[in-house]
């Protein structure tokens, strides 16, 4: 029998047996290599405080404790199961950071989600498919929840009220203080200078490249919006690094 803990019979019923161990290990190593990793996991003695505090645990088959345990044990098979499934059930509220050992299961999940996105995993594409408008708004304007997102298609669970709101958006918007300048397509007014700075940040930090693997359509649109504005301001979009 193998002495490699990752090949013990306990993993015989692990899901995703079709995915090579090496691939699971590569993704695991990518999570562990993140500079934030060692500030989020100090070992778990299963007190369950994180689970008791977790809103997602009340509604889904989800447990923040499982993340801390699985990663602490270096259980690569279990890690992969979490990476392609439960990792998207977390609401990222960080209630779990009340851990007496100073673990942050929510922080581990942040890192795992980034690894899932950076590797273009199908589960990440599926989880983010409904958020194309949010990605588009955030990356093209820096604002996320704009009034014109209040649409019956996007919030069917709000019932008939949302139809009434979207039909009279401009009127409702005027009831809110003038600081927002009553914008409809943006949460507030965003200057061109801010957008240029924002686009440079997305490009230079690699955030923009993350989108290409996860949502090709949004990438295509954003690439053209960013390229046009940055080139108007004298930046060579294909050689942004040269400005550093």
């Amino acid at each position, binding site marked *: 029998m193998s002495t490699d803990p990752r090949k013990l019979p306990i993993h015989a019923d692990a899901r995703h047996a079709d995915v090579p161990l090496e691939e699971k290990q590569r993704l695991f190593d990518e999570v562990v290599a993140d500079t934030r990793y060692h500030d989020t996991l100090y070992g778990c003695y299963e007190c369950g405080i994180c689970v008791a505090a977790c809103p997602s645990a009340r509604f889904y088959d989800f447990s923040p404790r499982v993340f801390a345990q699985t990663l602490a044990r270096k259980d690569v098979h279990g890690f992969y199961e979490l990476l392609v499934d439960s990792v998207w059930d977390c609401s990222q509220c960080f209630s779990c950071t009340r851990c007496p050992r100073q673990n942050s299961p929510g922080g581990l999940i942040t890192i795992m989600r980034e690894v899932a996105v950076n590797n273009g995993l199908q589960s990440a594409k599926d989880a983010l498919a409904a958020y194309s408008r949010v990605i588009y708004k955030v990356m093209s304007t820096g604002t996320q929840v704009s009034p014109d997102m209040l649409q019956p*298609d996007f919030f069917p669970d709000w019932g008939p009220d949302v139809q009434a709101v979207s039909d009279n958006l401009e009127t409702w918007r005027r009831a809110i203080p003038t600081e927002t300048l009553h914008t409809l397509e943006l949460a507030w007014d965003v200057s061109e200078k801010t957008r240029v700075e924002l686009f440079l940040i997305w490009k230079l930090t690699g955030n923009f490249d993350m989108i290409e693997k996860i949502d090709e359509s949004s990438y295509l649109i954003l690439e*053209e919006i960013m390229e046009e504005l940055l080139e108007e301001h004298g930046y060579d979009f294909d050689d942004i690094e040269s400005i550093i």
Partner: protein
Amino acid sequence: MPSIANCSIPDDLFYHVENNTWLRDCGNDVFELGMTDIAQSLAGAVIHCRIKKAGKGVKEGKSLATVESGKWVGPVKAPFACEIVERNEAVEQDASLLNKSPYERGWIARIKPADPAAARASLLDAASAVPGFEEYMKQHGITECTHCEGCDLP
């Protein structure tokens, strides 16, 4: 007019199945382009459509317009390398035309292909496009097209 599950596929147009767009030959190597009935159903109520300005060149597969609906945002891709001859200002002003009249008042742009002969050869007529659209609908889980109030489709 061929139809799949309440989705209209007019006979007098050409189609690019993968991009879910239609094209009308306007003569003089100019094509009118828009979203199909299937595309508008998939998008749902469209609230913005931003189209590139006339004179802009667009490479094949790149975006010539951005469509934003209540639940989705996506590009309208150029089926071939082309130049935008004219954009539909009415759609820029009222993007719901894409839902109300996808094949007539909701045209998005008039484009001139860089290579007209190759462009014509790349397009499908309605009958040839139907199997591709059926497969597309299956892949995207579309059981039928939906039409908003005031839509000019039968």
